[in-house]
């Protein structure tokens, strides 16, 4: 007799699986769906760019316009120098829509635990794969590091920002090294946050559609709606955090701290002693 409650656990895949081979390379289900999403995204945005008018007509085009405007304001307002901020707008608008569309297209029925090849799902949301989000996080932080090095002039000036005072002072040295470590962990915190939110959303939907049995659409619907909200929120948060990391580094690049700017702390005494 079939029990009313779960007799075996539902299929949960947290790691991507290779579904087919292409010229010696294994193509995993998440990168396969990522390609599909990228093509859809490119076609959609070329269409939107052609159709866009000065006077908004509403519909999908206006949704894209509102999103782009929102991120533009977010990026420009984060910088002290508004002209400097405008340079970085295209990257962050692209990032926002790429993450948003990958999150939302991952909720389409059939993606995730829908269609199977063997025991593996054929399609998985691209952002529900740690490799994908790690790549996004790494590229974003490389943009941040590259821009801050360029804005501060040289690598020496850039590294100088991590230290409040003279790096030879042991206290400032440790604080500076900790700051550098914090900067490196941002790659992982950005990518893990996005990956875990999307992957766990998939698991929650899979679990509740499994528990629903025949009523699976009804039990999974509230969580799918929740995931729509979470997907948009995560795209926004990824943008906000990376913009702030960039803005802190770039805004900081202009006033180089000299020895006179350092407040009177033990550092001054120690330098005179040693």
């Amino acid at each position, binding site marked *: 007799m079939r029990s009313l409650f779960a007799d075996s656990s539902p299929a949960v895949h947290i790691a991507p699986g290779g579904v087919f081979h292409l010229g010696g390379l294994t193509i995993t289900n998440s990168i396969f769906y990522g390609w599909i999403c990228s093509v859809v995204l490119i076609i959609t945005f070329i269409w939107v760019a052609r159709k866009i008018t000065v006077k908004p007509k509403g519909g999908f085009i206006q949704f894209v316009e509102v999103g782009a405007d929102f991120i533009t304001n977010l990026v420009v307002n984060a910088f002290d120098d508004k002209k400097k901020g405008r340079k970085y707008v295209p990257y962050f608008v692209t990032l926002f829509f790429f993450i948003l569309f990958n999150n939302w297209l991952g909720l389409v029925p059939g993606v995730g635990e829908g269609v199977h090849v063997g025991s593996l799902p054929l399609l998985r949301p691209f952002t529900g794969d740690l490799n994908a989000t790690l790549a996004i996080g790494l590229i974003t932080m490389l943009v941040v590091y590259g821009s801050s090095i360029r804005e501060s002039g040289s690598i020496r000036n850039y590294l100088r920002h991590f230290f409040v005072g003279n790096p030879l002072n042991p206290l400032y040295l440790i604080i500076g090294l900790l700051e550098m470590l914090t900067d490196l962990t941002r790659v992982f915190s950005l990518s*893990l*946050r996005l990956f*875990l*939110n999307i*992957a766990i959303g998939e698991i929650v939907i899979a679990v509740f559609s499994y528990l629903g049995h025949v009523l699976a659409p009804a039990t999974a619907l509230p969580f799918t709606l929740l995931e729509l909200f979470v997907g948009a*929120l*995560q795209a*926004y948060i990824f943008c*906000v*955090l990376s913009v702030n990391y960039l803005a802190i580094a770039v805004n900081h690049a202009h006033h180089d701290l000299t020895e006179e700017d350092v407040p009177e702390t033990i550092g001054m005494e120690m330098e005179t002693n040693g």
Partner: protein
Amino acid sequence: MVSLIASTVDTAIIGKGLMIGGGFIGPGIGIGLIGGNYLAAVGRNPEAAKFLGQALVFVAIAELFGLLAFASIFIVK
């Protein structure tokens, strides 16, 4: 006695339950504090309602630690 308990009780299930329960306490308290303080700020000064986006950023930061606890249950066998 210990081996008898270990052979009859699936300790991995208990471990997973403790991880989920313990791991979600912190983010639950944190998100509650953020939401409560946001509503208190809006109640005192309705102009502050526009800072919902900033509040949600902190919700996401607090939420990450709960999700890390959730992800860790997959390494318990």
